[in-house]
């Protein structure tokens, strides 16, 4: 079946407009990237509630915190690389420490940003945000889930970080199916009992493809969409450790400190009785380079082919 492609960034922009009518306190800030992050849709509809901050991200994050302290629900948007590393101290003090109701919504996360190269390929953001007390960390996987996550962010009180990629992505979920989504609860996308693939963001679609390829080799895999990386769904991870023989994590992020690390921490501390094999897939402590997204994901071994290989190896090594 041919996949339907839709851009999660459009889901973000469209959902902001939809929610903007329902929530008069919703305000949006951007740092000269509103055409790319799609906050421009909100800016056109609600010009008074949109604050263009210019190319000055540090100021933007603290301004967002000041708006939140006055009862607003601010979404601050820019590329993931500028939304986290560049403004870490502002997020730490004014948003996380202050338990501010700021929603940081980053686009262009991961290496599939492509040709702009390592300067724009953010592979450390999840680690940076995960380590901050009070911060909730989200990585939606498709158009539909992105819209639902934005809804949840408005409802949830407190600091949150969400990242999506740049590119169009295959639609995984229907609007009806996504209604069940809850922050902090991973979603079982495919059932299986030999191994579990836990994926987030852009890698969920690759995991589903790998599931199908493995099915043909008589290997049954469970696929989890771990859209919430913090708080991580420990219960579900431990359930998978009990019910399947191996766990593989995959994310478009450094293997250090990301979703795979969160899963590993849970398994090491809390999985007492089940013998499983485990591997993290991600960027292996290196910066990447310019190139087509597909070429990059191939070179840095983040696609369905490598998932299939790794699952087979995990099961072989038992």
């Amino acid at each position, binding site marked *: 079946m041919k996949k339907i492609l839709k851009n999660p960034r459009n889901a973000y922009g469209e959902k902001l407009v939809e929610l903007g009518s329902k929530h008069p306190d919703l305000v949006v800030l951007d740092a000269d990237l509103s055409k790319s992050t799609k906050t421009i849709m909100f800016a056109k509809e609600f010009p008074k*509630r949109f604050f263009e901050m210019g190319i000055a991200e540090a100021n933007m994050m*603290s301004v967002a*915190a*000041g708006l939140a*302290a006055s009862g*607003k629900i601010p979404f601050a948007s820019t590329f993931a690389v500028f939304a986290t590393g560049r403004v870490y101290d502002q997020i730490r*003090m*004014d948003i996380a420490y*202050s338990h501010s109701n700021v929603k940081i919504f980053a686009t262009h996360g991961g290496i599939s940003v492509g040709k702009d190269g390592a300067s724009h390929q953010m592979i450390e953001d999840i680690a940076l945000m995960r380590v901050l007390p009070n911060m909730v960390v989200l990585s939606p996987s498709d158009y539909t889930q992105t819209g639902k996550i934005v809804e949840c962010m408005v409802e949830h009180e407190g600091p949150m970080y969400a990242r999506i990629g740049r590119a169009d992505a295959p639609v995984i979920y229907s609007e009806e199916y996504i209604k069940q989504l809850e922050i902090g609860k991973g979603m079982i996308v495919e059932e299986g009992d030999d191994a579990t693939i836990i994926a987030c963001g852009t890698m969920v679609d690759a995991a589903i493809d790998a599931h199908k390829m493995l099915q043909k080799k008589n290997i049954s895999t469970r696929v989890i969409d771990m859209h919430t990386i913090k708080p991580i769904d420990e219960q579900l991870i431990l359930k998978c450790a009990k019910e399947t023989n191996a766990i593989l994590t995959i994310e478009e992020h450094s293997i250090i400190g990301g979703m795979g690390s969160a899963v590993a921490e849970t398994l090491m501390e809390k999985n007492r009785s089940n013998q499983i094999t485990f591997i993290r897939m991600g960027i292996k402590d290196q910066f990447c380079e310019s190139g087509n997204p597909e070429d990059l994901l191939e070179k840095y071994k983040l696609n369905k082919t490598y998932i299939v290989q790794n699952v087979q190896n995990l099961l072989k090594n038992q």
Partner: protein
Amino acid sequence: MANINDKLILKLEIAAVKARKQIIEMLYKAKSGHPGGSLSAVDAIIALYNVHMNHNSKRPKDPNRDRFILSKGHAAPALYAALSQQGYFSEKELQRLRSINCMLQGHPACRYTPGVEASTGSLGHGLSFAIGMALSGKLDNQSYTVFVMLGDGETDEGQIWEAAAVASHYKLDNLVAMIDRNFLQIDGNTEEVLRLESVKDRWLSFGWHVIEIDGHNMEEILQALNETKAIENKPSMIILNTIKGKGISFMENNIDFHGVAPNDMEYQIAMDELNLHQKKLEVSK
């Protein structure tokens, strides 16, 4: 608009000397903290909370309250003295500054202390935070004013100049900033560490209304704050020419007291000097 008279000025001067005693007492008990910058900033903070700010300690979250952000968070003792005088918490709390399980953190923390609007201590953030509050006030057609105090050394930080541009761009006449211009930062004189002059021209060039005054003169502080009320379509900056360590002879202009608490002897001398000053003021009453 404050009605400035001798009686009000004297009242504020007495409140300020009491606050200086509280600062010394706090730091002596805590055996750590920042006397120099607390003593230079305290007069304007006392004037704000006593006269110019519309606030009520019984309703610290009132949406219409005027707000004060201490961006130079290391001057927390000056803020805590003012807040305790205004009834946000008991004066007894001051004795426990920087202790475990205490509401008074080493640097201002909004989740710990009633009346503290923003968590500061990492320099350069407060002006931006204040802009967020001012933008919100404009959006909701509320009449409150947001006040923010910066250190002069703090304006080395690049974020200050991002904020300076944004406040001017959005014509935030409900924002009043002050610079505690004491000419000293940790590594020395501000002009030797990283030249700031002309401070006035810098802010003027960013489109701000700028007033320069003696930051220890209550009459000038009140006049300057009155002046800002009439300014439209631009933010105001009051440059407070101050003396680091003001009010205690051996701390004045002495960079060694940026971040060092007084010892037993220094504490005694400081309190004697401040008590004497307070007595003189009370006699003139």
